[in-house]
């Protein structure tokens, strides 16, 4: 599909429930599939299924033994996404959970819009999957009742059987003997009632079950992109240009490499899609030779114009544009902040910054490109096929229908594998070589080609009256914008209808506190934007935005002489726009207040030693339209002599609506809390000479097991609509730590990561 209709496609995806649903028996299986919103009226369910007249990204099959296969077009990258989706279905279908398995399908434009990111999967599939299960159950009950010779209304379904009094028949036997051919229109499907959370037996806070994708990940049999081979392929490794954009190759000298057995030459890539510029790839019969050859090939360039950009340049531009009110797009404008400021007796201002940070997903980027049967076959793990495919097709100069992305497990995604730009050099190399190519990035190649979390700059200004009463806040925030680069169709208009804003670089500033005067303005940092492709990194904008916001809220509370927790609770009153919306944010800010209140009680009696403190924060990631309500606390110790910050314990209280997979949710929260900690204290990769300065794990130092604190995670029992939990745990950790450091030693840290040298410098000042 083209970029133009991406937003329409996204809407269609969200509106899976606006699709028809077909149930039909075919050969020895029963098929259930989502179809188009409008049903081609001439075809029966059976015929549409037989002729593949459906465009599902999820569908199911049941065989004569009652085994259910759930086909899923979602990327598996550690969130075990197939399992909860299958559970939601199985719960309504009333099939036997032990007979359910999942298959991650290869990706093809015909499956419809494909994206796994933004913690959207559960949010987008809960209702349609529930209704699909309910529809399947109804059909099976009807068919089962006929076979049993009893009225359908005397039957119920349970664990793979249709039961009427003392008669019963298994789903498998119904599939073997029944003749099913039923289509639900989009409207009929949308009207099917779904069970309330209380009635669910396969999902919910108390459901205890294991993820289906885990066993193969304990014995080496799970297949990741990097494990794939195709016949007759060459291996390739890239040589990256000195800048992300605008470099051109002027000369290549491979005379030294020629003596390497297995060396197969190099390609200078020309990219019709404009994704890469100035790339050379080196070919060999085996990968170790390609690794070596890269070091022996000398490439000369005309470097792009960002070749001298440094982190300081990015920060300087950031500060300039947050201070200039003419820059950027206002996306929140409550009350009249200018009036509040003119009446203010006092103000406080603070500038918060974060350093460039990287994904460092463990599986380095890789892809196989093979031209076969008139189509390009791409083998790689990708999160956002529908965004990637048009670019790949453009690079190959073929129609999108001639590209097929084959899906594998992802050795970590975290946002790096959304936009599959790394496929382009693989494809161009294969095209130039006239042979299938497996392109593998060595770790430094991967890091230099990462889409890093942009360095960011946030300016806050709060107004107070003469009694220190808080009046309002102005917030300006600047960074490189991932969406502007990779999916401009998703930019949103500003509050006045003017200008554009990347909500993935703005969400979080549109917080849930009731403030009479509040303005937020997002600005794109063009120096960052030109230097690299800014990335969506786990928790995206909220990760740096809420770090500043929730630290500054503490500063405001201090100025107002209030306890930071009570100050927050008072502003989380759920009034006006903060009251939330059905279905996704029912209760609004009051649910956030509830989590903070629980956390406050839980931490009331923690004993603090010398130079220790507890800090708090609240967050509602990922977006206002899909908030997971989280209150986070950190207990820290600060060594005043060395400046070392030690996090002793992290707490989180989470209300994410009905929890589909509690153990999976806890695993995601454990991982995301530690991500938050790692970004708060350890991870930074300053740009130097146009590129990130640390390219491997001996200099880039994410958290390891020896820095893992105790964690206390509580899931609030809720009947509300389920929202995603894969990322939001990251958000609150950094500000909770910063606030705890202030409590411990009275030092306010305003740069991420918070390093020992910042602490000692602040203590000296």
């Amino acid at each position, binding site marked *: 599909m083209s970029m133009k209709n991406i937003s329409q496609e996204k809407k269609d995806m969200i509106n899976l429930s606006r699709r028809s649903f077909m149930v039909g028996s075919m050969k020895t299986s029963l098929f259930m599939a989502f179809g188009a919103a409008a049903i081609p009226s001439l075809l029966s369910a059976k015929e549409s299924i037989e002729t593949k007249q459906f465009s599902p990204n999820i569908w199911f099959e049941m065989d004569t033994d009652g085994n259910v296969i759930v086909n899923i077009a979602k990327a598996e990258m550690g969130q075990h996404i197939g399992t909860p989706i299958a559970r939601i279905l199985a719960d309504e279908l009333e099939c036997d959970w032990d007979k359910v398995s999942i298959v991650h399908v290869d990706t093809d434009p015909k499956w419809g819009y494909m994206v796994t990111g933004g913690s959207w999967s559960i949010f987008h599939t809960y209702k349609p999957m529930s209704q699909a299960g309910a529809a399947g159950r109804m059909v099976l009950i009807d068919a089962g009742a006929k076979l049993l010779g009893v009225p359908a209304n005397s039957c119920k379904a349970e664990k793979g059987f249709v039961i009427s009094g003392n008669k019963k028949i298994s789903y498998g036997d119904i599939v073997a003997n029944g003749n099913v051919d039923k289509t639900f229109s989009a409207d009929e499907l949308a009207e099917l009632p779904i069970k309330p959370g209380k009635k669910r037996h396969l999902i919910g806070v108390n459901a205890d079950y294991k993820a289906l994708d885990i066993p193969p*990940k304990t014995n080496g049999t799970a297949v990741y992109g990097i494990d794939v081979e195709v016949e007759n392929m060459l291996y390739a490794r890239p040589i990256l240009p000195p800048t992300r954009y605008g470099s051109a190759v002027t000369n290549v000298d491979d005379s030294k490499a020629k003596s390497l057995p297995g060396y197969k030459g190099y390609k200078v890539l020309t990219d019709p899609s404009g994704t890469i510029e100035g790339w050379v790839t080196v070919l060999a019969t085996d990968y170790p030779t390609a690794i070596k050859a890269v070091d022996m090939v000398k490439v000369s360039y005309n470097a792009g114009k960002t070749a001298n950009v440094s982190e300081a340049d990015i920060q300087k531009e950031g500060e300039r544009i947050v201070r200039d009110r003419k820059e950027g797009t206002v996306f929140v404008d409550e009350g009249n902040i200018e009036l509040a400021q003119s009446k203010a007796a006092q103000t406080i201002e603070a500038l918060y910054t974060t350093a460039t940070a990287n994904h460092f997903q463990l*599986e380095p980027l890789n892809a196989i490109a093979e031209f076969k049967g008139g189509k390009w076959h791409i083998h790689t793990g990708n999160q956002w096929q529908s965004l990637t495919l048009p670019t790949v097709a453009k690079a190959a100069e073929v129609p999108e229908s001639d590209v097929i992305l084959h899906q594998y497990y992802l050795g970590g995604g975290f946002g790096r594998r959304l936009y599959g730009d790394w496929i382009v050099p693989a494809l161009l190399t294969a095209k130039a070589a006239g042979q299938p190519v497996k392109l593998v990035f060595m770790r430094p190649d991967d890091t230099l080609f990462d889409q890093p979390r942009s360095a960011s700059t946030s300016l806050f200004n709060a107004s107070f009256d003469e009694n220190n009463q808080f009046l309002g806040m102005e917030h300006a925030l600047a960074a490189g914008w991932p969406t502007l680069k990779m999916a401009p169709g998703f930019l949103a208009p500003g509050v006045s209808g003017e200008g554009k804003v990347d909500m993935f670089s703005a969400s979080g500033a549109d917080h849930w506190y009731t403030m009479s005067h509040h303005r937020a303005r997002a600005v794109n940092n063009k120096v960052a934007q030109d230097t690299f492709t800014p990335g969506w990194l786990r928790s995206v904008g909220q990760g740096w935005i809420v770090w500043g916001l929730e630290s500054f809220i503490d500063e405001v509370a201090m100025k107002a002489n209030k306890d930071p927790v009570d100050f927050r609770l008072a502003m989380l009153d759920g009034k006006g726009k903060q009251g939330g919306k059905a279905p996704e944010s029912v209760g609004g800010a009051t649910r956030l207040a509830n989590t903070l209140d629980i956390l406050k009680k839980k931490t009331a009696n923690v004993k603090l030693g010398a130079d220790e403190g507890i800090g708090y924060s609240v967050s509602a990631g990922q977006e206002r339209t899909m908030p997971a309500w989280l209150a986070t606390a950190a207990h820290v110790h600060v060594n005043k002599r060395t400046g070392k910050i030690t996090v002793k314990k992290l707490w989180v209280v989470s209300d994410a609506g009905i929890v589909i997979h509690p153990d999976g949710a806890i695993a995601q929260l*454990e991982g995301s809390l530690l991500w938050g900690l790692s970004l708060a204290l350890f991870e930074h990769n300053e740009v130097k000479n146009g590129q990130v300065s640390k390219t491997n794990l001996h200099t880039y130092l994410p958290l390891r097991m020896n820095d893992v604190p105790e964690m206390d995670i509580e899931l609030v029992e809720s009947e509300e609509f389920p929202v995603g939990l894969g990322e939001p745990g990251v958000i609150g950790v950094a500000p909770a730590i910063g606030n705890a450091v202030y409590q411990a030693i009275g030092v306010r840290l305003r740069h991420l990561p918070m390093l020992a040298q910042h602490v000692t410098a602040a203590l000296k000042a």
Partner: protein
Amino acid sequence: MIEFTLNGKKVQTDAASDTPLVWVIRDEFGLKGTKFGCGVAMCGACTVHIDGNAIRSCSYPVSLAKGKNVNTIESLNNEHPLQSAWVEEQVPQCGYCQSGQIMQAATLLDRNPNPSDQDIVNHMSANYCRCMAYARIKKAIKRAATSSVQYFDPNASSEGENA
């Protein structure tokens, strides 16, 4: 020509002597369970056992393996108590680091069937997990340690200290 024993079988390779063992295992012998992450011995995704020691195969030239016993995740046959503990504790997220984590942990239990928390942290802290499944890795090691008096030994002739 370099000869060594891979998961109990004698094998030979013509790879250049400085070829990192990981590529020989993965691409020549097709055992893809051993992963590649950093290439500089800083993540542990490529951990295998060589004569019973946990070794980073990305930084181990194949020539050094000559005459030695190399065992990969596949050699555990899905029978190692760590593997069932990994499922019980639902450890893996993306799973990419887990072959290496399990191989690293196996050499700990080999020598110290009842490790303390600190022993585990000391032994495991050089293994990177980007999904940050550290809490569960630790729990699973404890579970495997307490649940099995007898544990699977992939290499009966193991000796020496951890690498």
